[in-house]
């Protein structure tokens, strides 16, 4: 199982947000209570009724498993939380996996303690199997996990 140390994760975050800045892609480097992580907000417009869903994505280093983990929440512009069935239908697309809850579940945010969805760290190993040691671990992780959760990641990240 491939892991990444917290120190390396911080370096990867700085590298990743550097690329994001040059692409004006909106990822922000955050530090709260001494914990470094990256965050991005993405607006998804629903075609069915023209309502907007605002998604917050956080990639945070998981202390026990020593891997990056994606956490996300979604709410309407009223501030109301998006219900779970909408999460599945609008945001999450996992083809060929019958038990969605085995990959994406709910948990308390590791820093702020509010409920959010996350891609379980046990799956990071599967997602990272094609990772080459020379490239940015965080970048490989984000490009692998993003299609599952409606997160757009430009090809320019990899080509940069």
């Amino acid at each position, binding site marked *: 199982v491939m892991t990444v140390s917290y120190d390396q994760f911080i370096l990867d975050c700085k590298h990743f947000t550097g690329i994001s800045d040059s692409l004006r892609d909106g990822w922000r480097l955050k530090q709260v209570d001494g914990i470094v992580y990256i965050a991005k907000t993405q607006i998804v417009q629903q075609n069915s009724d023209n309502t907007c869903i605002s998604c917050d994505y956080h990639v945070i280093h998981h202390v026990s498993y020593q891997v990056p983990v994606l956490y996300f929440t979604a709410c309407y512009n009223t501030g109301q939380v998006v219900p779970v069935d909408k999460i599945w239908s609008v945001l999450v697309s996992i083809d060929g996996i019958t038990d969605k809850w085995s990959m994406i579940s709910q948990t308390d945010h590791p820093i702020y303690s509010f*409920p959010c969805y996350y891609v379980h760290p046990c799956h990071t190993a599967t997602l990272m199997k094609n990772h080459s040691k020379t490239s940015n671990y965080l970048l490989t992780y984000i490009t692998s996990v993003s299609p599952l959760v409606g997160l757009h990641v430009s090809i320019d990240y990899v080509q940069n």
Partner: protein
Amino acid sequence: GGVINKVMVDEGTRREVWNGKIPVCFIVDQEEVGTTNIPPEPVFMLLPRVSYFPFIYDKLENVYGGIVGKSIEETIWLSFGSTPLKWHYPVGVLYDIHGRSSTLPWEVIVHFKNYPVDQLLLYESKALETHFKSKMKEADWLKHKAEVIQQMTPQEFSRLWQGFSQGSYDEFWSVNRKMMLNSRGDIEIFKHIPFCIYKEGSKVYQRLIPGVGSTIGDLLQMYVKDEQVNSKYEALVQGVELPVETPLQWLSTYMCNPDNFIHICIVCNT
């Protein structure tokens, strides 16, 4: 001799942890009952510290569900005053965080409407078992790189869950004792200690702490500013204030919760 007495004391501690209880008084949310109805009677229960509120959700639904006209889609939830109680936290932890300063029995309000989805995880019948299993896997990953739990058969895990959910110490520990040994069945210090810290009402970001040589004092150093350690802040485990010299390896072996985590509430004694 001395060694045998220590084993008996340690085992006794483990039983005391299992048997520790909180007296709780459940009252249903008045607003859900309506003013025209006679207020329903409160329900008193003596709940194990190491258990979870969902274990008694059925009982509460049987008592109050009909009175409030609970529908199939509605899910029960509990609060202390206006603070929703996280169903995936052990009862004892919730009491130590929220109820310590109130008189006993601890008054908890039962709700069926307006589930606070922005504060509580969604709940369905298997949610607690799934959460428990996930915690156990994480605990063994920290202690043994998951080598012990990987050897556990589904039947063993089933006995573990049955034993715990039905309050059978012997059945639970007949399986869980393996989690205190390495994959060869020998005593070995845990690589890292599985712990959860709660401070000022919520769980704080976890950190790694090795099994070798670590004490409660080391944890306080991590989570409380230097000048406040020993003077104001104390660590509570299973409701007991612990001396700073207490070794975490011992705590993890004899005072952990059934999920194999030590749950520590950092409290301020002003």
